[in-house]
C-alpha cells in the first residue's frame, strides 16, 4: 500500500495496558436471547455460523422443510431442536427471537406468524419481492411495538458504515450531486442440485415470478445505503437490462441491469450490476461539491476537492493511492492516539467483526432490551394506558444499538422492487411518496 506521508489512523487493537493498582476489569456480559432460525440454505447456515461466534446467541431451534438443509443446519448447532414445520418452532416457548432466512418471496408467512407468536424477528433483506408483501411485513412489525423487528440490512449496524454515515452528516461532501453503485461478479447464480424436483425451488432467484432480480436481491443493500446517505427515498426510477450470457439455461432474470434513481434536489444515483463480468467488484461512490466518497465493501475513502474547507486532521490521515488520485481512509474507531503506534501503521485490518455479526449482535441486544423494558414497565405500572407505554418505549428506543427498523426495511425493499420494475419494462416509473408510507 502506498503511503503518501502523514500518520495512518487505524482502529488497531493494542495490548491492554497493565491495570493500575485498585482498578477493576469489569467487562460486562450481554444477556442471552434464545434464537430460532427458519431456513438453513447457504445464507441461513452463514447466519448459524455467525451466531455460534456470539456468546449471547444460543440457537435453540432450527427449521427447514428440506431434510438435507435441516441436517446441514443442525450440524452447526447440535444442541438445537430440529423442526421440519416452522409452526412447531414458533410454538416452542424457549424461542425468543426468530431469524427468517428463507427465499425472499416466502418471507411474509414466516414473519407474520412469528410476530403473532410473540417472537422478535430478524427478516433477511429484501423483506419481500412484491410491494404488497413488503408492506404487510412492515405494517405487522409496526403493530407490534413490544417486539423488536429488524430487516437484514446489515450495513445499518456495521460500525464501519454507521461511522461513515455519521461522518458524512458533518457536511464534508458539500452539496450532494450524484452517486453510483455497482456489483460485478461472474457467477451463474444457479444452485446446483442432484435432485431435479428441488431444482426450481432452489433457484427461485433466477425466475422473475419469484425473484427481485439482481437489483432486488443484491442491489437492495446498496440502494439502502443511498436512501440512508441522502436521508430520502427516490422520486423516480428508470432502467434497462438484458439476459445476455446465461440465456440458454431456462432463467428469465436479467444477468445485466442498470437503473437510475432520482432523489429530491436533483440528485441522481446509478445502480449497475452484472453476473457475467467481475471487473472492479462491488463498490459505491457519492459525489459532492467538496469531496467524493468511495465505498468498497466495508472500507471507505474520501477524495477532497482542492477548494474544500480544511478538516484539520488531514495530516494524520492514512492515504491510499488509486491511479492518479489519493484517498483519505475513513475508518471507525480511528483516533489520533492509535496513529502514534507502530502496529497501527503496519495493520491493514478493516474490522475483526463482520457486518452480519454486528447486525445479529445488535438485533439480539435490542430484542433483550426491548423485552426487558416492556416487562419492567408492565410489572411496575400495570397495563395502564397504551400511550404511557409508547412514550416509555420511544424514550427507551433512543438507546437502541444501530440497526435498520421496519421503515428502513420497507423503504429499501420498495426502492429495489420499483427499480426492478423499471428495469423489466425498460422505462421510467414515477414513485409516489405514498409508496413509502405505512399505515
Amino acid at each position, binding site marked *: 500500500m502506498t503511503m503518501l506521508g502523514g500518520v495512518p489512523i487505524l*482502529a*488497531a*487493537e*493494542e495490548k*491492554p*495496558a497493565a*491495570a*493500575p493498582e*485498585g*482498578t*477493576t*476489569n*469489569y*467487562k*460486562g*456480559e*450481554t*444477556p442471552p436471547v434464545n434464537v430460532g432460525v427458519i431456513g438453513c440454505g447457504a445464507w441461513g447456515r452463514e447466519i448459524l455460523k455467525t451466531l455460534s461466534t456470539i456468546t449471547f446467541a444460543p440457537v435453540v431451534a432450527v427449521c427447514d422443510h428440506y431434510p438435507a438443509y435441516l441436517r446441514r443446519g443442525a450440524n452447526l448447532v447440535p444442541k438445537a431442536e430440529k423442526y421440519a414445520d416452522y409452526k412447531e418452532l414458533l410454538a416452542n416457548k424457549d424461542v425468543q427471537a426468530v431469524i427468517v432466512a428463507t427465499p425472499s418471496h416466502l418471507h411474509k408467512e414466516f414473519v407474520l406468524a412469528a410476530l403473532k407468536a410473540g417472537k422478535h424477528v430478524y427478516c433477511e433483506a429484501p423483506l419481500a419481492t412484491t410491494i404488497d408483501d413488503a408492506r404487510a411485513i412492515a405494517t405487522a412489525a409496526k403493530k407490534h411495538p413490544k417486539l423488536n423487528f429488524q430487516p437484514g440490512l446489515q450495513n445499518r449496524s456495521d460500525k464501519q458504515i454507521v461511522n461513515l454515515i455519521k461522518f458524512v452528516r458533518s457536511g464534508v461532501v458539500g452539496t450532494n450531486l450524484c452517486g453510483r453503485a455497482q456489483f460485478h461478479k461472474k457467477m451463474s447464480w444457479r444452485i446446483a442440485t442432484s435432485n431435479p424436483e428441488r431444482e426450481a425451488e432452489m433457484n427461485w432467484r433466477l425466475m422473475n415470478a419469484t425473484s427481485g432480480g439482481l437489483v432486488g436481491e443484491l442491489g437492495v443493500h446498496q440502494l439502502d445505503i443511498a436512501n440512508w446517505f441522502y436521508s430520502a427515498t427516490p422520486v423516480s426510477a428508470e432502467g434497462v437490462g438484458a439476459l445476455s450470457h446465461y440465456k440458454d439455461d431456462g432463467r428469465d432474470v436479467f444477468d445485466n441491469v442498470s437503473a437510475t434513481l432520482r432523489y429530491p434536489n436533483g440528485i441522481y444515483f446509478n445502480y449497475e450490476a452484472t453476473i457475467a463480468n467481475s471487473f472492479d467488484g462491488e463498490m459505491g461512490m457519492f459525489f459532492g461539491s467538496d469531496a467524493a466518497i468511495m465505498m468498497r465493501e466495508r472500507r471507505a475513502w474520501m477524495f477532497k476537492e482542492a477548494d474544500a474547507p480544511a478538516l484539520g486532521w488531514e495530516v494524520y490521515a492514512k492515504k491510499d493511492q488509486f491511479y492518479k488520485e489519493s484517498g483519505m481512509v475513513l475508518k471507525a*474507531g480511528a*483516533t489520533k*492516539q*492509535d496513529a502514534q503506534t507502530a502496529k497501527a501503521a503496519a495493520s491493514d485490518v478493516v474490522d475483526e467483526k463482520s457486518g452480519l455479526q454486528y447486525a445479529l449482535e445488535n438485533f439480539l*441486544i435490542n430484542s433483550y*432490551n426491548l423485552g*426487558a*423494558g416492556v416487562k*419492567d*414497565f408492565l*410489572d*411496575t*405500572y400495570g397495563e*395502564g394506558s397504551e400511550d*404511557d*407505554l409508547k*412514550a*416509555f418505549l420511544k*424514550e*427507551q428506543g*433512543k*438507546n437502541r*444499538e444501530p440497526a435498520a427498523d421496519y421503515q428502513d426495511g420497507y423503504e429499501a425493499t420498495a426502492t429495489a422492487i420499483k427499480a426492478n420494475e423499471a428495469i423489466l419494462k425498460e422505462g421510467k416509473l414515477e414513485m409516489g411518496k405514498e409508496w413509502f408510507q405505512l399505515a
Partner: protein
Amino acid sequence: MKLKTTYWTWGTVAALTLAVAAQAADSVRLTSKPGSKVSIDGTSSIHEWTVEGAIIKGAFEVEPEFLSDKSLKSVKSLTTDGACPKAEISIPIRSLKSGKQKMDEIMQEAMKATEHKEIVYKLTAMKVKGDVPATGTPVKFDTKGDLTIAGATQPCEMEVTMNRLDDGKVKFIGEKKLKMTDFKIAPPSPQIPGMDRITTGDDITIKFEWLTAPAK
C-alpha cells in the same frame, strides 16, 4: 338453638367485616405511575457520565388524612416520632441506561445485577421539615431509610420534596450523594481498545422523581 348459632355466626362475620374495613381505611396507598424518573451521575477520567431510568416500583402507604389534610398536621406518621409511613421502592438495575450498551453492561456487572437485580430503598422515618404552604405543595421532609445496592445495605438520610399535582398525583423528589465503595462496589476501570484505561470516580449522585397516585 340451631337458629341462634347461625345468628352468632352472621354477627361474627359482620363484626369482622367492619373491623377489616376500619383497618383498610387507616391507610391509603399511593402507587407508582409512568413519568417517574431516576438517574445516577458519576465521574470518570474521560468525562462525566449519567445513567437514566423510568422505572420505580413500589408504594407509599400513609393515613387517609394525607390526602384530605393539606397542612399534614393530622397525619401522625409525618409529624410524630416513632410513627412512619410505609414505603418500599425498587429500581431494576437493567432499566438504567447510559446510551451505550457496553457501559450499561459494565455497570450491571459492577452492581452484581445477576444476583441483585434491583436497588431497594425502605423508608424508616419521614418528618415534615419547615412550614407546609397553604396550598399543601411543595412540602419538604427529612427522611431516613435503608438503601440496598448490590446486596449491601447502608442507612440513607435525605431531604425529600413532595409536590401535589393538579391531577391528584403526588411526586416525591430527592437526591443523595453516595460512594460506590460504601456498597462494596469497586469503581469500574474498563479498558477500551485504543484508549487509555478509564477510571471511574467513587462518588455518585442518585436523583429521583417518583410519581405516584392513590390506588383505586
